[in-house]
């Protein structure tokens, strides 16, 4: 594999390059012209495949990169910002945390179980290739309405896929969210986040370096799975996706577990200089990206890649998305040491290439050069686009609609009915049906798991610290008002993390949007990113990475523009850990930080009770958000907070109910008086989703109120808890609402199990006879 002058000639048997073939590879005529100019000649079939993979949206971010550049990415504790497999922050005691979120929407729409499972596998690899040991995963899921059998099938399959993979590898799935809305019927969203821990000095980057260093393929053999999966992820979902089924990849969590252990051992051994997983676009993107980051040349010989099937072409080997594979750059002369470590873990390693001085990206098939690109231009030359942006007038009209005049339903005369009905909305209802299928306690570090707090708390062994972790994002808000939706996604994630006693530190984000070449969608993307940036700056939480998933459209339309924020917060000492249920041991005062408003737009109340998506989503005052977080954390540090829960979906009444029934074995009654806001419309007061509010149970209300006032945050005691009580009572002037806890609990805990009971995971779409299903 020495440097030599080369000529690239078409490989016998390869198709010749035609405009149709170029189009099939997703390249525009302009992009193709750019490729020809870069090469100074026509590309070969193999080269076309490589470029199609690297220049598609998933790998190149061609429609989002200019926007992403506007996000804040720095803080003194950020050790690695965007640009690597995962972001990394320092959390004290010499420890660092790597974290990243990624989407697997399209694969999950086609094969929910394997799609979700391989999504988890991919994000685990992104974290452990930084040198960090994964300690937790989070999953952020969105589906259509559970009324549809097809949706129930997707939901059950995705949950089983997320669970089986993480459970087998032994990484607890500790937090996340599940949202149901018809907007996601044809195109579910499956975003997975992984968080890992290392010592600061164990950080490694995926940057090829050292002329003559060998490039080694590690892990599973390469098969024909998922060829062009990355470009598949960048197309609209349509009936034609059915024909793409063989592109689906199958996960092998057992091999992943071995790969995890072997990779960490390799990184600690000092035998390697870089490591990256072969994820989207496989060998091609991992080798090209490592070379580009290190600004070196590489050469890869595809005949040395261990394959699973005979007769695989260079094109197939380069683009395969077989799972559980890594690409490693080792130090020259350490090949046998690398092999020995892999053998210990029953894995194979094969030298497939070399770092070279010559500034080229070259692929050979034995002696024949089948692809060659100048320098790192393959990665850096991808065009970026700034399409036209225009708000959809229909959406603007929906936002500007006055929702305060929507006539209430007759049943709403008893607000307890509305409350019970909202608690049974699958978006609000308990997700225990989901999280019970996840191993949440493996690694014995989960201090607060799913359902017990507003965020998960995972302790850091060997320290008194812990992490507060949560994903958040409200697509309905972002649909109605993308700027506000972007801000709220960050603010809510931060608030949730603060509610468990963690200081919000940094975010990763997953942007799930429709087709960006449509001006309406590009407008949403631009505004959401602007909103995220504003919130991150205001809250001091830089962006360390993320993922953009575009073309989330199906014949039934585009998904809501859905930003998902993965927030990492730091709990300074385990004494600060705070849960969301009212304490059962003694009565406490209930203090509301922040205040209700007349806002009702974009609420779950309107969506669930009135099937209406309209009105302006609640305003997000970032200074207020920061004040609420600071006040809450200061009260927690002072030791006066017994529980904390933010008011979000379903508003204040739902939040109160959740505090009462949050610990099902020790439910706690409460008596609350909201007469101070008697002038507000009752349903906005109870079910409106005004931002910047947290319910705190405390034995020292004065201290909590004082902490809030010092930060300009309104705060007021609104009631007391009643550990022996069986009701939640809410008074507003002369209106008295009384809701029985057992009924609330029945709605809240029973809603999803009841829906899913008649629908075992094995039942596949009834209304779509062509859809896929799986047994077991």
């Amino acid at each position, binding site marked *: 594999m020495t440097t030599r002058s080369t000529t690239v000639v078409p490989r016998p048997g390869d198709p010749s390059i035609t405009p149709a073939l170029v189009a099939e590879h997703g390249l525009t005529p302009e992009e193709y012209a750019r490729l020809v100019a870069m090469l100074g000649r026509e590309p070969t079939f193999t080269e076309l495949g490589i470029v199609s993979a690297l220049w598609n949206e998933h790998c190149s971010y061609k429609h989002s990169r200019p926007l992403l550049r506007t996000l804040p990415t720095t803080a003194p504790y950020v050790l690695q910002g965007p640009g690597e497999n995962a972001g990394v922050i320092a959390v004290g005691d010499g420890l660092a945390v790597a974290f990243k979120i990624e989407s697997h929407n399209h694969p999950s729409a086609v094969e929910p179980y394997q799609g979700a499972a391989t999504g988890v596998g991919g994000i685990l690899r992104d974290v452990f290739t930084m040198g960090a040991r994964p300690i937790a995963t989070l999953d952020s899921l969105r589906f259509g309405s559970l009324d549809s059998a097809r949706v129930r099938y997707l939901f059950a399959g995705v949950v089983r896929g997320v*669970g*089986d993979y993480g*459970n087998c590898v032994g990484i607890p799935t500790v937090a996340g969210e599940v949202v149901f809305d018809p907007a996601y019927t044809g195109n579910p969203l499956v975003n997975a986040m992984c968080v890992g821990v290392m010592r600061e000095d164990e950080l490694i980057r995926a940057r090829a370096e050292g002329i003559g260093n060998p490039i080694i393929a590690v892990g599973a053999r390469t098969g024909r799975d998922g060829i062009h999966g990355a470009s598949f992820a960048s197309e609209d979902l349509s009936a034609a996706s059915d024909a793409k089924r063989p592109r689906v990849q199958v996960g092998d*969590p*057992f*091999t992943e577990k071995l790969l995890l252990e072997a990779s960490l051992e390799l990184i600690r051994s000092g035998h390697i200089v870089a490591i990256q997983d072969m994820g989207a676009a496989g060998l091609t993107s991992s080798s090209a990206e490592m070379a580009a980051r290190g600004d070196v040349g590489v050469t890869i010989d595809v005949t040395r890649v261990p394959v699973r099937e005979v007769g695989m072409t260079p094109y197939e080997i380069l683009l395969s998305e077989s799972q559980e594979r890594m690409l490693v750059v080792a130090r020259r002369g350490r090949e046998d040491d690398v092999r020995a470590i892999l053998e210990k873990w029953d894995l194979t390693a094969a030298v497939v290439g070399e770092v070279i001085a010559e500034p080229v990206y070259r692929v050979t098939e034995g002696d024949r050069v089948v692809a060659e690109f100048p320098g790192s231009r393959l990665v850096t030359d991808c065009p970026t686009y700034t399409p036209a942006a225009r708000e959809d007038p229909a959406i603007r009209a929906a936002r500007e609609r006055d929702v305060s005049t929507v006539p209430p339903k007759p049943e709403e005369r008893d607000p307890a009915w509305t409350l019970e009905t909202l608690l049974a909305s699958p978006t609000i209802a308990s997700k225990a049906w989901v999280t*019970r*299928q*996840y191993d949440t306690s493996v690694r014995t570090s989960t201090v607060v798991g799913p359902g017990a707090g507003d965020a998960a708390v995972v*302790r850091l062994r060997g320290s008194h610290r812990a992490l507060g972790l949560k994903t958040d994002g409200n697509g309905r808000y972002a649909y109605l008002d993308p700027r506000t939706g972007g801000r709220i996604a960050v603010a809510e994630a931060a608030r949730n993390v603060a509610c468990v006693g963690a200081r919000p530190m940094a975010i990763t984000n997953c942007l799930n949007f429709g087709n960006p070449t449509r001006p309406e969608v590009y407008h949403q993307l631009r505004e959401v990113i602007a909103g995220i940036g504003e919130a991150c700056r205001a809250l001091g939480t830089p962006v360390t990475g993320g993922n953009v998933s575009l073309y989330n459209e199906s014949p039934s339309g585009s998904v809501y523009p859905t930003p998902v924020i993965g927030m990492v917060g730091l709990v300074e000492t385990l004494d600060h850990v705070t849960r969301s249920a009212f304490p059962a041991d003694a009565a406490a005062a209930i203090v509301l930080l922040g205040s209700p408003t007349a806002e009702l737009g974009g609420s779950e109340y309107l969506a669930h009770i009135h099937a209406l998506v309209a009105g302006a989503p609640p305003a997000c005052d970032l200074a207020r958000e920061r004040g609420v977080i600071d006040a809450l954390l200061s009260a927690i540090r002072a030791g006066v907070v017994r529980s904390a829960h933010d008011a979000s979906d379903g508003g204040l009444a739902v939040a109160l109910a959740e505090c009462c029934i949050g610990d099902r074995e020790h439910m706690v009654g409460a008596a609350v008086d909201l007469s101070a806001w008697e002038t507000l419309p009752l349903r906005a007061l109870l079910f409106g989703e005004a931002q910047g509010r947290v319910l705190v149970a405390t034995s020292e209300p004065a201290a909590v109120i004082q902490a809030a006032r010092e930060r300009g945050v309104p705060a007021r005691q609104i009631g007391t808890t009643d550990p022996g009580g069986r009701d939640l009572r809410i008074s507003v002037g002369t209106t008295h609402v009384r809701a029985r806890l057992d009924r609330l609990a029945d709605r809240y805990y029973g809603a999803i199990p009841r829906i899913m009971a008649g629908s075992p995971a094995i039942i596949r779409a009834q209304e779509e006879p062509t859809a896929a299903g799986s047994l077991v």
Partner: protein
Amino acid sequence: MRFGIVSFPGSNCDTDAYHAVADALGEEAVMLWHKSHDLAGVDVVILPGGFAYGDYLRAGAIARFSPIMREVVAYAQRGGRVLAICNGFQIACEAGLLPGAFVRNVSQSFICEPVPLRVETTETAFTNAYARGQVVRIPIAHGEGRYVASPAELDALEDAERVVFRYVNAAGEPTADGNPNGAARNIAGIINAAGNVLGIMPHPERAVDATVGGVDGLALFESLVARVAA
């Protein structure tokens, strides 16, 4: 006292068992590699939870043939103490150290949650620090946790008081609603006839620290320490 914890490829509760012994219990813990034939002179072997060899085919089926299992079986036959947890229990059954077998949970899905267990006997090296009839809360985390055996085998287990832990409901009764996985006769843990091999489906090593999951599993480890010290 020295505990040896076996690491199979795919074990994922081996480090949890290590921390339970070394940190919570304060005893010596060593890891035993599956390819090794050396039990390092340990006083107790722990077969930990996880998905050894991916649990492909059947849970525990392949792990049973691991090199170290030859030593573990011989050690158990000599009277050495073996604590087999979750996947370890499945492996112990496949290896013939304990009777019975496991099939998928009745719900067909993986279940992770703390469950109440009743301690059925304290006349074992693993439970002498509990009170008879005591109800403890210990997490389960398994997809194939449904214990099955022939009626004759089950009767034999009962007659010899070898059912050590049973799943119970909130009232402490071994009813169907207190049975998370459909296990025969609510069986969560059994011991071999010689009294030196305990299989338990729930995870006592996840219940040794008040910060994460409570401390109801600690007495199991303390029982072993008390017995070996005696």
